[in-house]
């Protein structure tokens, strides 16, 4: 009972994930600022932003469904927090079972759908436009992402993240065998998080704030939290699936390796948002279905051939 509560609320549950997400947001903003020759925010800025949002007035336009609009970020938050329980952190896996990768992927696509619904229930024109864009984007990146992520599972012969980590211990990190798959997974993650350069649903100069245009106050704060936790979890997942060495005999080494790999992925994400311009939605769909899907299939074919 006590250990269950500990897992849920402190580690690897709520508190740890919130702290990680705040740290991620700060690091991301700081790196981006330095890439752009700016100073960037101080370390407490994400927390200050969150406190500010939670203390602000909560408004929705007339005609919007307040109940649904409140429930959507809460549902997304609970979905990502639950997903976080199953993602191993530095080899620590309290709730691992066979097939948890599928559960994680399912739970992590809940926020995208909620994001679309948020656009629809908050009645603004930009919200609806952004919502439909987020669905279009979902169909473009999700398929190559899922195909790519099944690569490690096929290679290790198991749909359990822990099992995948263990087989990487003997075979070496999967990024060596599936570099294309790793790149596709990063692209898919960027699409999932709606980060620059795939921030099409919330592109500021086109649709103002996308589906969240009309959201304010605590709801907006929750959405921020959801997006950042999702980013952290996505990075954790990629670390576990591709970069290996996160489950060694020495837990201390595992923690250090895990932190380094986390930082490397943050740098990759921030760098991508610094050097790429935003695509148009039709260009993204073309990229997704004409290039990314065939590439991911090639990667899977290669993995299966290697297994034989």
């Amino acid at each position, binding site marked *: 009972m006590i250990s269950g509560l500990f897992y849920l609320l402190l580690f690897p549950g709520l508190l740890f994930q919130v702290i990680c997400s705040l740290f991620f947001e700060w690091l991301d903003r700081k790196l981006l600022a330095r890439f752009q*020759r700016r100073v960037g925010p101080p370390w407490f800025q994400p927390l200050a932003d969150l406190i500010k949002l939670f203390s602000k007035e909560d408004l929705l336009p007339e005609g919007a469904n307040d109940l649904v609009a409140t429930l959507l970020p809460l549902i997304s938050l609970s979905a990502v927090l639950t997903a976080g329980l199953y993602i191993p952190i530095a080899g620590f896996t309290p709730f691992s079972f066979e097939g948890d990768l599928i559960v994680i992927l399912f739970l992590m696509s809940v926020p995208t759908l909620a994001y679309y619904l948020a656009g629809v229930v908050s009645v603004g024109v930009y919200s609806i436009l952004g919502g439909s*864009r987020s669905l279009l984007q979902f169909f473009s990146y999700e398929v190559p992402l899922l195909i790519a992520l099944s690569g490690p599972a096929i290679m290790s012969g198991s749909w359990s993240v822990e099992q995948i980590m263990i087989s990487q211990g003997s075979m070496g990190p999967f990024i060596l065998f599936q570099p294309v798959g790793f790149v596709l997974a990063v692209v898919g993650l960027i699409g999932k998080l709606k980060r620059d350069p795939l921030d099409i649903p919330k592109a*500021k100069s*086109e649709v103002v704030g996308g589906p969240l245009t009309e959201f304010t106050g605590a709801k907006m704060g929750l959405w921020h939290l959801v997006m950042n936790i999702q980013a952290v979890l996505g990075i954790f997942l990629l670390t576990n699936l591709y970069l290996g060495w996160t489950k060694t005999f020495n837990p201390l080494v595992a923690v250090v390796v895990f932190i380094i790999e986390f930082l490397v992925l943050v740098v990759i994400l921030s760098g991508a948002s610094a050097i*790429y*311009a935003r695509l*148009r939605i039709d*260009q993204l769909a073309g990229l997704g279905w004409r290039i990314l899907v065939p590439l991911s299939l090639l990667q899977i074919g290669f993995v299966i051939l290697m297994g034989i």
Partner: protein
Amino acid sequence: MNKISIPIGPQHPLLKEPLTMNIDISGERVLGGTLRLGYVHRGIERLAQQKTYVQNVHLIERICGICSHVHTTTFCHAVETLLGIDVPIRAQYIRALMCELERVHSHLLWLGIIAKHVGLDTIFMHTWHDRELALDIMEEVSGGRVSHAANQIGGVRFDLSQEQEAMIRKTVNDLSDKANTLMDVIENEPVLQARTKGVAPLSAETIKNYCVVGPVARASGVDVDMRRDHPPPPYDRLTFNVITRQDGDAWARTVVRAEETRETLKLCHTILDEMPDGPVSVRAPRKVPEGEVVVRSEAPRGELLYYLRSDGSENPARLKVRTPTLPALNLIPKQLSAIHVADIPVVMAGVDLCIACADR
């Protein structure tokens, strides 16, 4: 798909200045749009009739926040023509130097904006920092970053010392290096090209029918530049290339402005090399004799036209300002058909809007 109408402006992240547009879209397709000006209409043409010529120099400077110097230069040129006084040649060169620096900073500002609109914030931040160098020169020599107050009727207010000339040369060299790096980045940026190539192309015929001037016209192959065709002094003594492209799409406009920035930086060196010594201003009487004059000059956004009529008093009897953005704005609703919603920012940025100029 249903037709919905999205409002853009007067406040929208896409716009840096207030303008209202109503754009009809169906899904991700734009069907058309309408445009409404007037949010920053300050009645400057009317106000100018109530101020003296001396005061008007400062009023005219506030028409635009980007190309403020070329407005006062043109206005002073008009008044000086009516007065019949010859401005010292050194003053003309200093004016031209400021105009060219202004063109550099205006074009760099524009490159930053189009980069921001396609989501390339890094280039936006880098260009806007490099643009500060041009502003620093102007602040150092004139005392103001944006409102330089460099002109007075009869000349300019300040002279350039030897150290200042050396500083300008050094900074312009520095700026050339940075501009080259930026152009290199922009020309090799695949996504920027994918977003701008073939977007809203305008034929030379359309450009002529809509009386569009400046870089937008030159990007469509209409070779018009008032610095060469109708040179206000001292441009008749200077040689420079006019950049044109034939494609007329958003990418051609980017390239034209980028190339023009380089060419303008070269011209800054020419101006400094050829600048003669001498006085920088002559005394001008307060009352301007009766007469009318039409003056044209090339602002960063294209041809600028001033019509000035004096009735012999201290105040102008009629001042008409035609800013280069006005005909370009006319073209926007025409461009807004059969494009993607995501192309709206590219189209709007492509014509380099200056709403404050257009509204006056």
